[in-house]
């Protein structure tokens, strides 16, 4: 089994999907000749040619809009947005069209596209290369939103997203693109194109990233890694056993796993990098209180980015929830 990092895991998924189903194509700015600024699509041009691996004009609405049209014809486009913040020119196409095509065609034609968005900070990038816009997509009905945290999961989720009939916003936590390696079984978990049910399952389930029972931390993306480290710190310093639940699916949320874990542990925090107000943390927190408040020993805490623009990168470590901030947030809940 090859040991891959997340970039390679994603690349493998694209390669396997394209090999299995000639309806799959990849399109975006600089995805073909360079293999994308993060090299996720490296090598695909040579293997599948210009008709299926397409360097587009600099035109996000055009890219997503054209992908919707292709999907209407029956192709399965996987679109790359170069960086988080550059998705906004395509926002209208995503929320007004991709999200509503199934609804507007009485279920006949979902916009079966995958929109890959490398997101978040931590890579010392200039302004507007570090945002976390996922909550905006979560709030818009008609989209699925997922976020992998390990190379193996990245491969499996991307294949599932391509197999899945509904449009999927595929958030890629760029900070951990290359930080860890996994054994990734070569065999793809899903065979295109008849695996819808299975894909839907895979795309809607949270996973336990670290077991524990005194408190649970809910997170997704690169802060899952920080949560695991914060949990270790709590273990070392206070003997607290903290569970980390990786949400994986941001819409729909795996409510049962979330409320189950909160009930079992009695104490919980939600951690994300995006700004706090009206972020996913608010949704997770409300869900837990609404459903299992009586099982809680303390209100659910939130450790998140601040309600400010992502800072210039010299200060990004002040912005991104650090291990210390996460631990402090957990302690507040533990000491309630």
């Amino acid at each position: 089994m090859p040991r891959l990092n997340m970039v390679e895991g994603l690349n493998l998924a694209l390669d396997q999907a394209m090999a299995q189903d000639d309806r799959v194509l990849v399109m975006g700015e600089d995805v073909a000749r360079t293999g994308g600024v993060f090299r996720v699509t490296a090598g695909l041009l040579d293997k599948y040619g210009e008709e299926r691996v397409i360097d587009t004009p600099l035109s996000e609405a055009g890219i997503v809009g054209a992908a919707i049209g292709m999907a209407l014809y029956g192709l399965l486009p996987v679109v790359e947005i170069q960086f988080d913040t550059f998705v906004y020119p395509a926002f209208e196409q995503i929320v007004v069209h991709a999200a509503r095509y199934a609804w507007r065609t009485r279920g006949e034609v979902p916009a079966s596209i995958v929109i890959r968005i490398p997101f978040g900070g931590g890579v010392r990038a200039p302004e507007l290369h570090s945002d976390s816009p996922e909550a905006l997509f979560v709030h818009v009905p008609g989209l699925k939103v997922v976020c992998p945290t390990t190379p193996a999961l990245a491969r499996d989720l991307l294949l599932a997203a391509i197999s899945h009939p509904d449009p999927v916003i595929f958030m890629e936590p760029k900070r951990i693109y290359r930080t860890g390696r996994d054994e990734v079984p070569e065999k793809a978990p899903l065979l295109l194109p008849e695996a819808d049910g299975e894909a839907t399952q895979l795309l809607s389930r949270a996973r336990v990233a670290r077991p524990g029972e005194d408190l649970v931390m809910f997170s997704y993306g690169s802060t899952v890694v920080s949560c695991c480290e914060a949990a270790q710190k709590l273990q070392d310093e206070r003997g607290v056993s903290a569970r980390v639940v990786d949400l994986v699916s941001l819409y729909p949320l795996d409510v049962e796993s979330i409320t189950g874990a909160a009930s079992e542990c009695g104490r919980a925090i939600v951690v994300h990098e995006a700004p706090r107000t009206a972020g996913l943390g608010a949704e997770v927190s409300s869900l837990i209180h609404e459903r299992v408040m009586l099982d809680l020993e303390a209100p659910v805490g939130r450790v998140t980015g601040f309600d400010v623009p992502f800072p210039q990168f010299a200060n990004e470590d002040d912005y991104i929830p650090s291990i210390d901030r996460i631990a402090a947030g957990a302690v507040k809940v533990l000491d309630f």
Partner: protein
Amino acid sequence: MEEPLRIIGDGVGQPDWAPPVELTEKDLVAMYRSLVILRTFDERAVSLQRQGRLGTYALYWGEEATHAGPLHACNDSDWLFPTYRQNSIGVLRGVKAATILAWWRGYGGAHGFYQVREHRVAPICVPIATHLPHAVGLSWAAKKRGDGICALTWLGDGATSEGDFHEAMNFASVYKTPTVLFCVNNQWAISTHVSRQTATPTLVEKCVAYAMPGLRVDGFDVLACWKATKEALDRARAGDGPTFIEAVCYRIGAHGTADDPRLYRDEAESERYRALEPLGRYRAYLQRLGALDDDQASDIHDEAKALIAAAVAEMEALDFPGVEILFDYVYASGRPDPLTEGLDELRSIERRPEVKPLGPQPGASPGDADPLPEGA
């Protein structure tokens, strides 16, 4: 500024030209029939709206040539991408007129939305210019597959100001997609005259920015609209890429049933354009050609009336949609939990009586009692 291409004369000063040779007499009559169906639909929809049986409706009275002409130039396997203005174009492709009326009545689901792949007609697009990239993407996909299928899409004069128009034009020209962008320059975008929309004297010159061929035709002339589209489609099918067509006409009616054009233009001008409307003009032309006699014409009108009357009856017989309609089809993969929970919540509440699909009442203009918007 060159005169737009015209085939049909006015029977007085302007000469007739022969119909395009590719068109048989049967074709010519078929096109007449399409115009009549469109007109009948439109007039009926306006009156239904006045009676409060439809919501706000975007009429197209006088623009039928820009719908039927291009459509008849297409193969049946080509795709159409209409806006709210070409809302009933699907009827000419076999979509039930009742479905489109139901859309304007505010019905969703299978009542108000049609099957797009079956008819190769994309859903009615409301937000301006945003469907253009879809038409480009679809035809690009067809080209990749080598299927010889083209996309025909409509847009208004106002739509040329949107970013999506530009991005679609650029993609189409860069990838030489088999797309026809048919721009109905009816000179108005709600209350905004085209002269405040763009600094160019014509819209067709916009295609220079994309090295795209452009054609300019009389939008009241169904044969001119046909001919330009045919030429564009032939080029597209030959692998030579997209064409932009500007069809010059005038929005004779209001923008929509809630709009009052007296607020912003001299209605005497629109009265003058009324004389150019495409149906009567084409009929006179066919009669001068001897291709249509009065009996035939009145049969066609009767048939159209019957068709639309049946559609109205069918629409009115539709069950008022249940609450499930809110949650159906949102996801092709089934209802995620929040939708199931929403449906349960809604089912637990006693439902209020059926909502009347109220548009503004007869003759109403926006005022205190009427919070209805103008836009379509």
